[in-house]
């Protein structure tokens, strides 16, 4: 799945998280509509994104896709 790109369908910034993610707070998650079809829930690195922003997958950690905004 590496190298996927897509469009942000929806997103949120999380401030209250379970212990496993507490160190990352605040962090952004998004549901991304992939150009190749379907949607995935992933994390956003770097700049915050909004609905309709274009994003590219930059890495996958333990099956979780991490996206970055395409400038």
């Amino acid at each position: 799945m590496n190298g996927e790109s897509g469009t942000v369908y929806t997103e949120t910034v999380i401030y209250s998280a379970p212990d496993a993610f507490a160190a990352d707070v605040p962090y952004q998650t998004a549901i991304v509509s992939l150009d190749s079809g379907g949607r995935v829930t992933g994390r956003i690195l770097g700049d915050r994104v909004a609905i309709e922003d274009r994003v590219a997958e930059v890495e996958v950690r333990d099956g979780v896709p991490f996206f970055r905004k395409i400038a």
Partner: protein
Amino acid sequence: MGIGKTPFGAFPDRDLRSLAVEAGEKCLRNAHANPAQVEAVFLGNFAGPAFVGQNHLAPYVSTALGIQGVPATRIEGACASSGSAFFHAFTGVASGVYDIVLVAGVEKMTSQPTPRVTEILASAGDCSGEIKAGSTFASLFAMIARRHMYQFGTTREHLAAVAVKNHANGALNPDAHMRKAITMEQAMAGKPIAEPLNLYDCSLISDGAAAVLLAPAERAHEFTDKPVRVLGIAQASDFVALDQKPDITTFPAVRLASEKAYRMAGVRPADIQLAEVHDCFTIAEIIALEDLGFAPRGEGGPFSLAGHTARNGDKPVNTSGGLKSKGHPVGATGAAQICDLVLQMRCEAGERQVPRHALALAQNLGGSGATCVVTILGTI
């Protein structure tokens, strides 16, 4: 039909079983019934094993109530667990397998610290996808809210109006967890939880139990002189993962269950006089208003802000305070919604009593919409 519930709140000295037993005993007493008459028990509970380390909960509770030998079954459907227990109890009575069935719902949540509660609640989502990515339940509904705002122009003010209204109702409910009215300013400025949701958009982490006794209509007079009839009921399902849903601004399971329940009852959304809907987050109440047909699609926010759902509005919603203010002991919520409607329908709702209460609807949602039970009640 009988009802019984514990107050909702944080009760460090109470265990799960004592809460369920208190609700069950109150319910049997309310129905002038004795344990030996109960032919089956359906217990709604979401996460007893994770919250308190106890499994095999249905006989654990039923025997403590003095109910011996009969089928005792736990039903798990996330936050819709006891709504689903009620649905399954109804099918048992309607099919003639049983006459007298006890439905109970219970959750003991406050013995765990909040981060652990958040983690346990998240297990009602897709643990191989969205949850692994760091989603919490608040964040799933936050993403729903974001999209609803984007598509329909729903605002922070609309969300806050739901919180203010439910807190105003809960302040009048002696059994509510948080008996405190809040202002629009407070509701707008709560601590952020998952943008755009703040603390006041989220339901409470509570302990509590609720129970309902079901009997065939022709035997209702043995138990109460104020019988309430189940006119329609349906349960529906959908994807667990939010990212699998084609449109997250509507809950197909709510639409399906409500359409079936309306058809079974022979009524329309406009006929419903009051409702208890599943406001686990403020946005969930707004979407429920739309999916249940009370407000046009996309207009649940303005409908709420305009006061239609207030106690003195034309469609009172969550006169109990809802999950937001009454509290949300997850597994008890569905049964508690039924109890709260029955109180209104019997004119026993005290200061929060509404004048029109002959036809009522309960909507109990599990997870981010994967399970929904809709029940329509009428006074005979």
